[in-house]
């Protein structure tokens, strides 16, 4: 169906405006705080993690400001240690791990599956409360007093010697861990049992596959870190335990148990982002994802192999040489499924009708930056090279390329893509493109110098350094200001769009997928009638019924390829 055939969104809009949607059907504070609607919980999470991101970002800016000088003028060493710990803990445990699953995943899973809600709506609410409780406890401890162990909490420093609020922070993390477990269980049950009739595994959007794999990792990994941190907590408070060498314990065992979770945890952060990329890419290339089954397979392979490589964090910490060799080899293998995805995305773009909307720009940024991050991961996985770069800024740059360039850009891509669905309003496309560009440029300016710094020997977690490194640090700090601007602008225009954004209509992108067949914002129970699915995912080669005129009056190139005015 061509775009002109449909009156531009008017019919659908009037219909959705006259019906109460999930945002406006009843909106006392109590209704929101006791809601079991997955969409509202997603919004609650969105608010929470945005606050967390802001706090983590403030700590990051403090670190960067401090590092402009080789003499550490701004803060004491102790304060500096607390700053980078707070940054790491907040960003990893309270932002990246829940970011995509708990907001976009929560919101979209039932919509994409054709269900009225997640399998366990009350558990979903519990998850948010656990997250908030854990967050308040951990942040309270980190702001009032601080923690100086780094996000990795290595023993025996964390369990015996550190004089900071480790114990309370660990309690907070322990609780937040359960919020993630609860979400994982909920997603698993939902994806298995709540699919609409006809929605077989090979018809699922890859976003769902990504969340399935992520949930499996959460369910298998998080309990291990919970029990490990629990043991550190006991050792710290009661001075009995199994990690402190002074009382017969074994600190390397802590590292094994910690990384058994924390390596898979990096896939908890990146897999959902990869899921987002699949959806956005397919929509803005107007193509089915190339090699759908391979992408599914690589998703599962990452989940499985991700559990076999934790030892690559311990090459130089006393682990046996032979174990190092095995873990090095396995780390090379785990890069293969990641590479498969990159190749598939590239092949999807090839000969696609690419439309450079803001989400697509984020998406392209993701692909490039994730590739760099993943490849430098291989440098780190090579035994002898890692001896040189371990504990330097090279590692810092590696993981920021995957976590900020990858996971965070993926999150922003998804947020822009589904913002019209979540709020019923369009964000200002022009500003969004500017923000996406700023984030990309700022990101590279911030973190590329860190590869060089690390290669030259700048150790991580230090704030005094030889003067010849200063130029790179100043560049990095300059970049981080640009990056910060790139994050601040969306915050402003997203809030602005809530009131002033153009009405989006159910399917502003002319995208395939069940979530685009319902009203924006969706009604309380999502679907009036449960859909029966008879088509494959990403069926962009058939005319799309809901395709409507885009807000910026650019007609989306639809299936007949009739219009290219968007280019």
């Amino acid at each position, binding site marked *: 169906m061509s775009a002109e055939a449909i009156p531009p969104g008017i019919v659908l809009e009037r219909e959705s405006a006259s019906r109460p949607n999930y945002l406006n059907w009843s909106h006392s504070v109590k209704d929101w705080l006791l809601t079991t609607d997955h969409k509202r919980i997603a919004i609650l999470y969105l608010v929470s993690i945005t606050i967390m991101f802001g706090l983590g970002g403030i700590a990051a800016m403090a670190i960067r400001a401090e590092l402009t000088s080789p003499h550490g003028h701004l803060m004491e060493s102790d304060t500096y240690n607390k700053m980078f710990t707070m940054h790491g803990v907040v960003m990893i445990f309270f932002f990246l791990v829940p970011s995509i699953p708990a907001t976009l995943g929560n919101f979209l899973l039932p919509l994409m599956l054709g269900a009225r809600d997640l399998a366990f709506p009350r558990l979903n609410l519990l998850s948010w409360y656990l997250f908030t409780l854990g967050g308040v406890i951990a942040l309270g401890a980190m702001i009032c007093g601080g923690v100086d162990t780094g996000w990795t909490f290595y023993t025996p420093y964390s369990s015996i010697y550190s004089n900071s609020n480790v114990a309370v922070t660990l309690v907070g993390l322990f609780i937040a861990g359960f919020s993630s477990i609860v979400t994982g269980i909920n997603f*698993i049950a939902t994806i*298995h049992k709540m699919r609409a009739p006809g929605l077989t595994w090979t018809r699922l959007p890859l976003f769902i596959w990504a969340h399935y794999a992520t949930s*499996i990792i959460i369910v*298998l990994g998080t309990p*291990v870190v919970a029990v490990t941190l629990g043991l550190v907590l006991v050792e710290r408070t009661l001075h009995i335990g199994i990690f402190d060498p002074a009382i017969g314990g074994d600190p*390397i*065992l802590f590292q*094994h148990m910690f990384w*058994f979770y924390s390596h898979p945890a990096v896939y908890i952060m990146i897999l959902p982002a990869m899921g987002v990329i699949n959806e956005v890419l397919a929509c803005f290339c107007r193509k089915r994802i190339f090699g759908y089954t391979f992408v599914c397979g690589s998703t599962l392979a990452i989940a499985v192999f991700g*559990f*076999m490589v934790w*030892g690559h964090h311990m090459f130089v910490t006393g*682990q*046996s*040489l*032979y*174990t190092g060799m*095995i873990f090095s080899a396995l780390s090379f293998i785990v890069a293969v499924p990641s590479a498969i995805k990159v190749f598939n995305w590239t092949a999807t773009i090839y000969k696609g009708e690419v439309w450079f909307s803001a989400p697509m720009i984020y998406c392209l940024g993701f692909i490039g930056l994730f590739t760099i991050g993943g490849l430098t991961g291989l440098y780190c996985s090579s035994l002898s090279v890692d001896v040189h770069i371990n504990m330097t800024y090279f590692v810092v740059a590696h993981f920021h390329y995957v976590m900020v360039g990858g996971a965070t850009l993926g999150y922003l891509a998804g947020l822009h893509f589904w913002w019209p669905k979540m709020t019923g309003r369009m964000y200002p496309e022009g500003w969004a493109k500017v923000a996406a560009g700023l984030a990309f440029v700022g990101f590279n300016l911030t973190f590329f110098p860190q590869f060089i710094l690390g290669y030259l020997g700048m150790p991580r977690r230090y704030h005094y350094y030889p003067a010849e490194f200063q130029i790179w640090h100043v560049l990095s700090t300059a970049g981080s200001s640009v990056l910060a601007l790139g994050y601040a602008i969306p915050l402003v225009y997203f809030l602005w769009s809530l009131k002033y954004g153009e009405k989006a209509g159910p399917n502003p992108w002319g995208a395939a997928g069940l979530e685009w067949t319902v009203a924006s914002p969706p009604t309380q129970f999502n679907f009036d009638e449960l859909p029966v699915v008879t088509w494959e995912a990403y069926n962009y080669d058939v005319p799309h019924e809901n395709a409507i005129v885009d807000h910026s009056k650019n007609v989306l190139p639809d299936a007949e390829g009739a219009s290219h005015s968007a280019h």
Partner: protein
Amino acid sequence: MEHGSHSSEIAYTDSGAAHITPPSTYFKTYVILLVLMVATIAATFRDFGTVGNNAIAMAIATTKATLVVAYFMQVKGSSRLTIMWALIGFVTLPFMWATMVDYLTRDWIPHIGWQ
């Protein structure tokens, strides 16, 4: 197929069907579990070498756990999905024991001329 083997009934209160395991199955399982417990105690009082004794004890414990999962927890005869989720934890857990490789090879010395 699977259900038929222990003559489960399909009954239900109001709506939805449940596979009801007959009590005799539960009692048989219970008796076997007790016998296995006695066996594991008896085995430790005989010397099969450290590895042997441990292998026997763990084999018996695994058998007992399998019986509990299959019969008490009614996994036998339930859907493939349930079976998968009942197994996934037990299957993944041993991965962690790769850690042992580290401890077992700590003292190995690289071959001369290797470095």
